[in-house]
């Protein structure tokens, strides 16, 4: 459903992505990991064109993201994205955060939008907080609202950019639980994360990146079980992460 072909990008002479190629099928749950600065976040942000690319092709379904003639806002409306720092809109209530784009982008009525918003707030266990403002919520709660906000748009794929990295340890679980449920319901997901437990239990594929290149792209079973087949850099990374 998503095809990434020979995608490259650089800031000046510094390459951030080096000819990355991969594809994601419907219902796949792909974890992207790697050391910081390896281009993981940049790669998933190219999928909804938040990061422009200099060469290569990206397809989401039949939509060519790399084509400058493509209506990018239309594409983005159906590609859900969850950010490291939640990025709820602080001047809007939880419910208004959920309905804004439904009304302005999808053209839903305010009633429809609220109904759907409530449905997804219930899914993430936040319905009781619909009238609060983001600043009145904990980090974990904010991130669950952010996930609900993305789901309201009926996304064909969900992109997670280090969704738990900014959270206190005791809140990581509640967000991963929501993501696990989503995955079990067949949502197509790409997650940049360091949560190797989540990668092992929930994802069916792992992409390992280093210095802007995709080094490993294999089933998560193979990634964790057959570590002797992995590249030295991936092994090194795993050893560092799993030793804690």
């Amino acid at each position, binding site marked *: 459903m998503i095809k990434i072909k020979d995608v490259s990008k650089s800031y000046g002479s510094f390459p951030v992505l080096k000819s990355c190629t991969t594809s994601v099928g419907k219902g796949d749950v792909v974890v992207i990991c790697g050391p910081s600065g390896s281009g993981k976040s940049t790669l998933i942000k190219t999928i909804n064109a938040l990061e422009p690319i200099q060469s290569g092709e990206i397809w989401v379904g039949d939509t060519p993201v790399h084509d400058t003639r493509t209506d990018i806002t239309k594409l983005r409306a159906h590609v859900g994205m969850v950010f490291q720092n939640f990025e709820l809109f*602080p001047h809007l209530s939880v419910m208004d955060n959920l309905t804004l784009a439904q009304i302005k982008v999808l053209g839903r009525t305010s009633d429809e939008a609220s109904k759907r918003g409530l449905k997804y707030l219930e899914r993430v266990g936040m319905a009781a907080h619909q009238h609060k403002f983001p600043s009145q919520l904990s980090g974990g709660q904010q991130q669950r609202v952010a996930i609900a906000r993305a789901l309201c748009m009926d996304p064909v794929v969900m992109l997670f950019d280090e969704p738990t990295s900014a959270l206190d340890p005791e809140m990581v679980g509640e967000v991963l639980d929501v993501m696990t449920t989503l995955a079990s319901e067949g949502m197509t997901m790409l997650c940049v994360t360091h949560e190797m437990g989540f990668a092992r239990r929930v994802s069916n594929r792992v992409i390992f990146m280093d210095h802007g290149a995709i080094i490993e792209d294999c089933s998560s079973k193979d990634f964790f079980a057959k570590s002797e087949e992995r590249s030295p850099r991936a092994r090194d990374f795993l050893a560092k992460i799993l030793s804690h």
Partner: protein
Amino acid sequence: MSLDLHFYSWSLVTDYLFRGFVFSLKLTLTATFFGTVIGTFLALARLSKKTYISHPAAAVINTMRAVPLVMLILWFYLLVPLFIGRSIGAELSAYITFSIFESAFFAEIIRSGIQSLPRGQTQAAQALGLSNAQVLRYVILPQAFRQTIPILLTQVIVLFQDSSLVYAIGAYDWLKGFEIAGKNYGRPVEAYLLAAISYFTMCFILSRIVQELKSRVSFNGSEA
């Protein structure tokens, strides 16, 4: 010499001060309104990635901020008749000059408000499919305004004080009311003393209101 405060009376207010006060207030409010509207567009223009938009905006803003207001008031009042062939009057001239002048200051305040927002806010709004105009209208500007309201209002107080500079073109503002009353009663010192007290009281009260607002408009200590 001793002060004679006998002419401090209600008729002083109704005969001399009221008219001037209304003009000062109208001038302040007009310049605030147009300054905010034009200033917002100037701020957006200055932040534009297209240099043929951002450079002219920067030039306008920097020029306005570098020129003394009283000079601008005079120039505009004296030069416009040369171009259109007739005077537009001191009051209209003041409205226009102050609006333009304030928009340059407001533009910089609003720009700083926009730039203080985390970049992620724009990205999150874009990721939901909002167009660039919608991102500004529903996500960025409401937050930028809320953050800058205390600074904007402080600027409005300065503007109210600056409105007395219309003396240069002879418009009848609040200060002019005191001046004329002082002359008519033959008591200029007492009149200016009352003017000082009046301006001080007015601006002091306003700045306390701004202080109060400042503590209210923050997002209850939302994440930094």
